[in-house]
């Protein structure tokens, strides 16, 4: 076991891990941050996306030890300071951007990374950016709508196609 230290959601954390310990395992089992979901474990679904130094990363496909000293943000770090939902999370709720919610942590983290890079994306840009996030429930339209709404764009005319 080797000690690894990183900053997760603004908090300095450390833990003992094996070489093969994935970031998703460290977050869920080491830090009890179970909001990060593991849908496939094969880099296909995007449910496990977190931010590593600001960039979206599939936490099931990176070793914890490779992230010594890194700054991580997970879905638990997305709410406002008072615990209320952030505008992006609230938009997912308002626009029915989730049903079972399994994909939602990854959807929110990927969407947040998109909006940080591109504050007013087009619907096409949202769809392209969420290419690696799979949802079995919603059919995606309401997710796209939620992201557009969170970016401050008027979505009243965007129907669920």
């Amino acid at each position, binding site marked *: 076991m*080797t000690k690894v230290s990183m900053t997760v959601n603004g908090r300095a954390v450390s833990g003992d891990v*094996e*070489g*093969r310990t*994935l970031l998703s395992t460290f977050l869920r089992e080491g830090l009890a941050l179970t909001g990060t979901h593991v849908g496939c*474990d*094969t*880099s296909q679904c*995007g449910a496990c*996306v977190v931010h*590593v130094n600001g*960039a*979206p*990363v*599939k936490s099931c*496909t*990176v*070793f914890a*030890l*490779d992230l*010594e000293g890194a700054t991580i943000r997970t879905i638990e770090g997305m709410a406002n300071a008072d615990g209320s939902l952030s505008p992006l999370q609230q938009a997912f709720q308002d626009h029915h951007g989730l049903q079972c919610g399994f994909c939602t942590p990854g959807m929110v983290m*990927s969407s947040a*990374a*998109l909006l940080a890079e591109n504050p007013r994306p087009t619907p096409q840009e949202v769809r392209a*950016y969420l*290419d*690696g*996030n799979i949802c079995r429930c919603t059919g995606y339209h309401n997710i796209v709508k939620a992201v557009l709404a969170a970016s401050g764009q008027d979505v009243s005319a965007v129907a669920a196609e």
Partner: protein
Amino acid sequence: MHNFDFVKPSSLAEAVKAMQAEGAQALSGGQTLISTMKQRLAAPAVLVSLTGIAEMKGVSVAGRVMTIGAATPHAVVAKEAAKAYPALAALAGGIGDPAVRSRGTIGGSLANNDPAACYPAGVLASAATIVTSRREIAADDFFQGLFTTALEEGEIITAVRFPIPDRAAYAKFLQPASRFSLTSAFVARTGSAVRVAITGASENGVFRWTEGERALSANFSPQAVKGLKANADDMIGDLHGSKAYRAALVGVMTARAVAMAMA
């Protein structure tokens, strides 16, 4: 996944030394290797991470030559190469999805030489040079068939050097389930010489389509390859597309790449 010792050197010299250990393997972005290890198709005893080596990262341009550090993630190439070599930047920006592009690197992609990967097409069509910890290898000598390259045991790709063509484009026909390419073409023209590299189509991995190159060197237009079909014999046939379908796509995607390069 079997366990292993993890080492993360901060210089190339240390990495070269670490690679001499019994059962050592390089780890770059991990977007291929970690899945392979989960399936126990690879079980290195020592994993040598290349992600902490500053001298292996970044994009630099000197005259008509662009150099990309082997450990540079796709997302960084998409941004930093956009001005000097837009066709290659677009290729990098179209690999997989944003999270894959945050971690996956050009060195890992070339060392892996997946028959449906994008970078091998860009590197072969550009006549790039693969720089390693031991030598320099011309793209024409580097790719040696399905998942096979000229790399020797313990050899590390450190950078890739691209002569920037006058005109170039990559036309990717997406295989939507894997997000790799079904059959894609990278076309590069310098002076009147044209190189065409095709990925996703052949059982032997990336290849130069010499028939297309000949036609395009005489007449650089989409019409020049209209109706030209690649030989279907050694094409990949699977549920996503038959051999004949892929052979037809070779011409179609090359024509699209030429149209993009002329735009």
